[in-house]
């Protein structure tokens, strides 16, 4: 098996049985990067020096027979909106082009403690705003399956890096589908955990009440393994919770799905949906049924109201969170200014990209007194209503299954000029963010053009274990995952 096709599980056993060293592993990853990164453009920053240093540490530890962390020696990548001490964290923005955080995000610290090796920081939509990774100030990441297609967004760099074999796991952040949608587009597994299961400390905030960090991996098992490491209460994040009986997600994963009650919302399969998506999801449904789950069709209205509520709330919070980028304390500073007002104005005008500015303006407007009740307050009420709907469903069912995205990976440039059309590609994923519920996307097949199709599983609060069990069962049945996901050589 070629190294770039291995899962984290394969690597752990390879290192333990001394088939290869961590250093060799890191070398092979950077070799792969040197081969394909030019075409995929998944990374903003590579941290070779740190990676080799860490690899040597791991190799020494292996030699001395020390007990290693669960991710020891595994080369991973981190989305560039998650702070890494001493390594640039740009949020794909000119505003933070040279920002080097003096601290690690809690998740980064946990990954490092578990022995993971950080290969680099991945490209994204600026400040995680977007669904195609075309809004980066630095580069446009390509879908490794077809280089003329977008990898999805905003964690497109992370998904592409994993799909192209340039990292074995990559962290993403998901505010409205930003882990799941690119995972679906790139044919990999992406999990958005329950809000509060994973610490947000060190994640440069986009919309604080919706953001959640999660793993993007090749297999469901790798996803569970990562979640085992990164989840849990963090005293630095007041919104995190400690989960009762938090046993290992990995240990639970093979327990099967006998008796699980699964709901399929009919509204997620409109007649306009690409029939290839409908067919692949349906096929998966029958497989799950065959494995002992019960399937019911239910009604879960997906309204434009929900999408609007999402954009109002996320933009409102973003307008506030991004206020700190004023050109005064760090980051981009304009050369031209007469007074402090002009300094802030010019820094923000020149430092932020188009989409970011669009959302800051939208958010500022909807919070302004006089419009607050008509927009922000109403959006919060819609959010409550959606929460209630999901609550009711999860009284009767264990899981909801739907497509991850209503569209297949679209051509680069196709939607960039039409933000409303772009926003629609998140319509199946935003509910999990508005409700704080956990959701996973895993590949369930390919369309005729060879592009991956993603299936989404949503669960009740803190039901990650159940979600992972179902995803794993399906993955096994489909024969995908576990290193089988074929990474094609990028086309020239």
């Amino acid at each position, binding site marked *: 098996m070629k190294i770039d096709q291995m899962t984290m599980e394969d690597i752990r056993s390879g290192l333990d049985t001394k088939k290869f060293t961590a250093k060799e592993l890191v070398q092979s990853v950077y070799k792969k990067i040197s081969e394909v990164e030019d075409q995929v453009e998944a990374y903003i920053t590579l941290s070779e020096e740190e990676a080799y240093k860490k690899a040597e540490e791991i190799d020494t530890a292996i030699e001395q027979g020390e007990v290693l962390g669960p991710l020891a020696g595994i080369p991973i990548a981190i989305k560039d909106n998650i702070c890494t001490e001493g390594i640039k964290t740009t949020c794909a923005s000119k505003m933070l082009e040279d920002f080097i955080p003096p*601290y690690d995000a809690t998740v980064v610290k946990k990954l490092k403690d578990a022995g993971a090796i950080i290969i680099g920081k991945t490209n994204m939509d600026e400040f995680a705003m977007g669904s195609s990774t075309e809004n980066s100030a630095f580069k446009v990441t390509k879908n490794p399956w077809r280089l003329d297609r977008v990898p999805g967004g905003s964690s497109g760099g992370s998904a592409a890096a994993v799909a192209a074999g340039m990292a074995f796991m990559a962290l993403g952040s998901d505010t409205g589908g930003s882990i799941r949608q690119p995972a679906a587009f790139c044919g990999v597994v992406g999990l958005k955990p329950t809000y509060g299961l994973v610490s947000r400390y060190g994640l440069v*905030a986009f919309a604080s009440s919706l953001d959640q960090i999660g793993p993007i991996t090749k297999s469901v098992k790798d996803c569970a393994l990562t979640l085992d490491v990164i989840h849990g209460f963090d005293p630095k994040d007041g919104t995190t919770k400690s989960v009762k009986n938090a046993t290992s997600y990995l240990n639970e994963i093979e327990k099967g799905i006998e008796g699980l009650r699964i709901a399929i919302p009919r509204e997620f399969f409109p007649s306009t949906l690409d029939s290839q998506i409908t067919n692949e999801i349906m096929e998966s449904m029958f497989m799950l049924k065959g494995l002992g789950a019960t399937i019911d069709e239910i009604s879960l209205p997906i309204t434009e109201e929900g999408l609007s509520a999402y954009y109002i709330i996320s933009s409102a919070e973003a307008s506030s969170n991004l206020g700190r980028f*004023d050109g005064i304390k760090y980051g981009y500073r304009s050369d031209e200014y007469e007074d402090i007002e002009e300094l802030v104005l010019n820094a923000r005008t020149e430092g932020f990209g188009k989409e970011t500015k669009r959302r800051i303006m939208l958010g500022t407007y909807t919070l302004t007194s006089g419009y*607050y009740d008509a927009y922000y307050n109403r959006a919060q009420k819609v959010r409550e209503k959606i929460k209630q709907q999901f609550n009711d469903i999860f009284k009767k069912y264990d899981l909801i299954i739907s497509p991850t995205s209503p569209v297949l990976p679209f051509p680069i440039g196709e939607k960039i000029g039409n933000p409303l059309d772009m926003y629609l590609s998140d319509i199946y994923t935003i509910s999990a963010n508005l409700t704080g519920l956990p959701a996973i996307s895993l590949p369930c097949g390919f369309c005729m053009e060879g592009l991956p199709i993603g299936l989404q599983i949503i669960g009740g609060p803190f039901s990650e274990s159940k979600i992972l069990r179902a995803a794993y069962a399906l993955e096994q049945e489909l024969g995908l995952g576990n290193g089988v996901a074929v990474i094609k050589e990028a086309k020239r």
Partner: protein
Amino acid sequence: MKWETVIGIEIHAELKTKSKIFCGCPTDFGGDVNKQTCPICLGLPGSLPRLNKEVVNLAIKAGLALNCKINNVSKMDRKNYFYADLPKAYQISQYDYPVCTGGYVDIDLDGEKKRIRINRIHIEEDPGKLIHLQDEPFTLVDYNRSGVALIEIVTEADLRSPLEAVQYAKTIKSILEYENISDCRMEEGSLRCDANISIREHGDARLNTKVELKNINSFKELQKALEKEESRQRELYDFNESYKVIQETRRWDSSKGRTISMRKKEDAHDYRYFAEPDIPKLVVDDETIRQIEETLTELPSDKKARFIEDYKLTEKEAEILVGEKSLADYFEEVIKFGLSPKLIANWVLGDLMKLLKVQDTNIGSIPIKAQDISELLKLIEKGDISGKIAKDVLEEMFNTGKEPTIIIEEKGLKQISQGNVLEVIVDTVLEGNIKSIEDYKAGKEQALTFLMGQVMKETKGQANPVMAKEMLLNKIKIV
């Protein structure tokens, strides 16, 4: 026309917490610039606030001391605005659900009680500090204060004069000090006042346009600023109806002795408040509130009443003693040594206060132990030293912290009460002043005072005055 002044006050008090409101950074005053900071209080990207529990408890304590309702559920909000000293571009504060609502405090106006209603008390963070350099085209920022925990105490518009406002502010200060909620060091900015002031015709129920005076940091300045603004507004109304007061924020310039416009209502900020998503709702159960209530100490007004009742002090005496908690504590400590409260009050309020004033210090930082001052007063009662000498001894104690007996010993100040020693001196004085004896006999009372003076002079003030006078009178009769 008869005008009535209407004033409402907002007091910002820095809470006496060891660390800042959202991080573990220290709150000590005067540390090296920007050294007491971390990613959280600097608002670095990715950092998250973590609410310090001590802050909530102190805010609740303040609410209980000011008769407020403590809300079991409250929340933190973001107040969004750009300012160079505000690292996150928003201040975390409380907007529509503050931790305490609807209280009151009674203030004392020349013996008359007046109840001032408190609208709310909320928690918030302090921003940093801008340092404007003279003749330089730039400004420096010190974030040491950024994230220091504050409470804001807001009154209803119940105050009717600058004097009432000052009396109110003093009352709040003393309560916060009493309850160990804030240091209330106005000169260090740990207590600051904003005041809303408007005037209206007497009997008018509706409020007129108000002006907000910002960041006043002493009671004297508060009074001056309000008086000046009061007369400015009166003049405007008296001058011409059309010269109405406009709603604005004005800053008090103490060097110029006038208020200066900062911003008009037209460009007043829209703070775009919304619920802080990084901090969960604040939930406080009744048991916690009860436990905090138990830590409340006697309030100054109650203490004053007790002092008058138990120690038979005058209104004025009690008020001064209670005005500063450490002074009242000191007073009661001395009482424990079994002296008359009235005598102690005289000495504490008289000579000791005078020394404190001259040396510009407070009772907490002087070296005189309560036991030592009681010792001194006992020596006077016993007649070992005169009251006059005691004053000198007290000053020496104040400066050196030595015990009174040691000072008296060292300086030989013990009163001369032995009859034989005194007799020799009295005889000497009488021999040298035959004329005065005759004057006295001729009915000139002052002659005796003169002779007493001479005795005191001879003994460097150490003669027991009662004995000396008796001896003089006896001897004059004999002579």
